[in-house]
């Protein structure tokens, strides 16, 4: 579907721009064919309407023949040929209209013939102009898309860097365990290595199945549970329908890190992180909530969220949502991604 036709407003706006174009065409034809206003309008109206729709066809033609696809001459040749065909077809429409009107206005046929060259050239030029405009639009779209993708990749790379404090604290826990509980120390080494390896691997991909992201979250929380012990409880409920949705890699990881770092870690008795994933009518809905201490010193917890928000915008525009609710005791982040399994 042509983008202009995707909604009523843009379609009407497009047709409205053809009114002045039709008037110019009419003026030229009436002068060269010596026609009066009524005669001109009767012929030019159907011609303009046909031309308006024909001029949308370059959307498909231009995309199948990108500017860099063939030699300039060949490309030019093809489009000129198309313009001639369009011109001939439109001329035919004019001729048919005129001949049906000869009963009311004898001689209209012959008069129109005098305007033929002007009409043919104008139609061809308008069509070529439409092709040029379409190339401009398509080019702008592609460059915007690649810009967004590049930004997305940049933000993802930023997030793929493992939080160094998490790493140092985990290593400290391992160091503490080596003397008292070597078996668990080894286990934690392996958990940590698994988490690091997986997060490096996933960080290189633009999108991953949701279940892989959840798996990474599980690994991360597994390591943190060694560190925090009973303080950190986790409840994870993921609907089966979400498992295969393609989601941006490492998108929810910072949300989980925040829940631990700014929530559980700063509470004396800790608490439970609750995660829930469902398929809703707008796509995948993921929420994460944790108890927190509103009086705790606020230490830059905005950075992770800002990064997630920017990535969503780069990837989905306005179609994705990120909502944050902070009550007296519970901090909840809800994420809606316009994705399907």
């Amino acid at each position: 579907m042509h983008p202009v036709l995707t909604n009523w407003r843009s379609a009407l706006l497009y047709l409205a721009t053809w009114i002045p174009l039709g008037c110019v065409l009419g003026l030229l034809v009436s002068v060269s064919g010596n026609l009066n206003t009524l005669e001109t309008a009767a012929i030019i109206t159907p011609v303009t309407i046909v031309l308006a729709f024909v001029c949308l066809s370059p959307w498909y033609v231009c995309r199948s023949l990108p500017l860099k696809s063939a030699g300039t001459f060949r490309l030019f040749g093809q489009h000129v040929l198309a313009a001639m065909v369009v011109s001939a077809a439109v001329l035919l429409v004019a001729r048919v209209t005129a001949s049906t009107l000869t009963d009311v206005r004898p001689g209209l046929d012959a008069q129109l013939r005098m305007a033929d060259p002007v009409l043919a050239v104008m139609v061809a030029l308008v069509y070529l102009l439409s092709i040029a405009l379409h190339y401009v639009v398509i080019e702008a779209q592609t460059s915007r898309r690649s810009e967004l993708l590049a930004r997305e990749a940049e933000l993802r790379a930023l997030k793929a860097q493992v939080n160094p404090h998490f790493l140092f604290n985990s290593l400290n826990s391992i160091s503490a365990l080596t003397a008292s509980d070597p078996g668990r120390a080894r286990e934690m080494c392996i958990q940590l290595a698994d988490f690091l390896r997986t997060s490096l691997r996933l960080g290189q991909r633009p999108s991953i199945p949701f279940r892989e992201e959840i798996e990474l979250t599980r690994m991360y929380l597994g390591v943190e549970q060694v560190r925090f012990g009973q303080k950190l409880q986790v409840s994870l409920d993921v609907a089966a329908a979400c498992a295969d949705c393609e989601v941006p890699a490492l998108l929810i990881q910072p949300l989980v890190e925040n829940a631990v770092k700014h929530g559980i870690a700063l509470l004396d008795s800790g608490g439970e992180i609750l995660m829930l994933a469902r398929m809703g009518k707008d796509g995948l809905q993921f929420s994460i909530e944790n108890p927190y201490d509103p009086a705790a010193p606020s230490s830059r917890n905005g950075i992770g969220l800002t990064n997630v928000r920017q990535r969503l915008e780069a990837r989905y525009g306005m179609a994705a949502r990120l909502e944050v609710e902070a009550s007296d005791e519970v901090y909840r982040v809800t994420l809606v991604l316009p994705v399907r399994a």
Partner: protein
Amino acid sequence: MKVVIADDEDLARRLVREYLANETGIEIVAECTNGFEAVKAVTEHRPDVIFLDIQMPKLDGFEALELIERDVAVVFVTAFDQYAMRAFDAAAVDYLLKPFSADRFRSALKKVEQRLGEARPASQSDELRTAARAPGEYLDRIVVKEGTRVHIIPVGKLDYAEAQDDYVGLRSEGKTWLKQQTIGSLEAALNPKRFVRLHRGYIVNLDRITRLEPNTKDTWIAVLTDGSRIPVSRGGYTRFNSLTAG
């Protein structure tokens, strides 16, 4: 040597305990899991040294240190290296970065022993307080101690601060809290866009000022939303105007 360990992570405390077990003459008098407990433990047990984590529930390590009035050697134990230089510039005896080796720990203990032999400058916390912040980063809450109870004042709820000898009186929600601190160091810690030094003895929250009334030739009186009247010096008047004009 009497020791307090303050860290919210069980394993982190276990490690310090393990390293200390290799030493002689060490008595662990308390283990704390948050900043409140650390303050309390130092007051009650009068330790020689405290091993202090920075990120902890309730009060962080720096805030706890502000409230510790006793002379105690402080060794920070943390995974964050960004405060290291500042803590050193101030009076922390040592700064251990997690994870650390037994040797590194022992050298920290050595420094503590040396320090215990010397007479120490009295007010370390004032310097440390100012030093612990990055430039452009200001306090978002002030901790005060009343007896054994700790009170937290979010800076948005501070009406004004008044110098009183070695203390500042902090006026908030109809009450005045006393804190041992100079008004100059408090001024340096507060966001200069929100608080203005109206007088040698007063820092006032800009949001609370309703109007200035002329007093003598070169001085004014600031009237606050709660009706308090604060003297304004000539310098204070200039500072106030340059803030409100911008």
